[in-house]
């Protein structure tokens, strides 16, 4: 059984009202979920052996932000990506800190560099940049006089 099939089997056991769609990309399984069910999906995955939250990050998709979580299960020896999207204006989503404490610093990093607020995070402060830094640099529309765009011909 491939990792994708193993994860598909796990997802099929989970509550159907969570709105999860599973797709395969390379040899990874991607769980696409609506933003409001993130916390519920996190709890369900944790209860089904996904005990590690490996990575939390975001991708700026112009109109909205895509949040990407990588969860690992040592018992299944498998990892899955959980993806969800939030609107760009006043972007916010539930924090996964109470499910996996590993989210602590990683969510702070996403807040710092993307400006996505994590509701329920115990200590949401900037982490890499100074507290008075203007803006969130990893947004595609971030502008800074010191950042010079390379010409396209290189």
């Amino acid at each position, binding site marked *: 059984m491939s990792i994708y099939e193993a994860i598909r089997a796990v997802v099929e056991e989970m509550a159907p009202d969570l709105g999860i769609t599973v797709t395969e990309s390379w040899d990874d399984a991607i769980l696409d979920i609506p933003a409001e069910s993130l916390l519920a999906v996190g709890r369900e995955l944790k209860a089904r052996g996904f005990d590690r939250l490996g*990575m939390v990050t975001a991708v700026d998709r112009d109109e909205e932000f895509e949040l990407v979580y990588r969860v690992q299960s040592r018992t299944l020896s498998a*990892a899955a990506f959980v993806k969800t999207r939030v609107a760009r204006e006043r972007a916010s989503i539930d924090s996964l800190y109470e499910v996996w404490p590993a989210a602590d610093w990683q969510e702070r990093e996403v807040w710092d560099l993307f400006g996505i607020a994590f509701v329920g995070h115990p200590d949401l402060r900037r982490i890499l940049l100074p507290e008075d830094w203007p803006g969130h640099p990893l947004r595609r529309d971030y502008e800074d006089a010191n950042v010079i765009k390379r010409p396209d011909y*290189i």
Partner: protein
Amino acid sequence: MPLQIESRKSTVTEEGLPVEELVVNVGPSHPSTHGVGRVIVHLDGESITKADPVIGYLHRGIEKMAENRTYLQIVPLTDRLDYVGSMYANWAYCRTVERLADIRVPERAEYLRVIVCELQRIASHMMGIGSAAADTGAFSMFIYTFDVRERIIELFESLCGARLTYNYVRPGGVSFDTPEGWTDQVLELLGTLDASLDELDRLFFGNVITRGRLKGIGVLSAEDAVAWGASGPVARGSGVDWDLRRDDPYSVYPRFEFDVVLGENGDAYDRGRVRLVECYESARIIAQAIEQLPGGAVRPEGLQRLIAPPPGEAYDHIEAARGSLGVYLVSDGSPRPYRMKVRSPAFCNLALLSKLCEGHTLPDLVVVLGSLDPVFGEVDR
């Protein structure tokens, strides 16, 4: 850097004596902070109630810079992540690019990658043990470990010309084949390595002062290690049996015999000792890899200099000296990545600092920090 320090908590004891929390600043350029990092320590009398690391002093915005460079131009950036283990970041990045752009790597290049990365693991662990030892006052250990590290770095220098930022692993393969007699030099090093490691084990880990300083300090339970996303020697020191080389095998690792080293108590001593014993295992892997080393090219033929992967995203990770180092790349079909994210093990391990220091004294903070072995280039990116 303006920073709000929480107002001190004042309480009154049963006898009516006022007690005030003491806030001590360590860093940013303190000799025992392992780079430019800072820790704000809250003390209740002698014992630490909270140790809040302030990071970002080395933040260069490598993820943002990557959006503006071609895939080959990013390899030198990855050198500057974990600057005592550059080969790892090179490799993790290249694996993701290869997955994204569907590039096949020649077998000889895979073997060379394993050899340099296991050598790098020894060099990096030597740095970790040496600086942790120096922090506890055993400065002479630093000289012993640097002797081993220096011999490895000289090998890297003859391989690719650089001593620190190698830029050696490239998408598709490695930059240079071995110079004549290089593998013999590696075997020569391995011949004396065991004796050096034994000596280190006896001198440092067998030392009664080291045991007194390190044992029982910063105890991390296996459950916490998993829940907090710790990896590498930090997690294995707590007995978490998880090593990507064996559990998510990549490259040619399934062809080698090696053991995953585990600690029992999850304290600073076990984390340090796991690093030392891992060096023996790395030496075993290198010896097997040199024995099996096939001939052939080290870069695939006809590889375009301007890589433009099809739109999509890919993630790949390797077991670096500090834990699982992952790179996530999103391509929009252009020759530059749309987004690059580095999942840094040092960053995730450092998040445990406050938890591990609770209840210990200020000198123990230095021991715990040393046992987490952070490299701030990778923490801050």
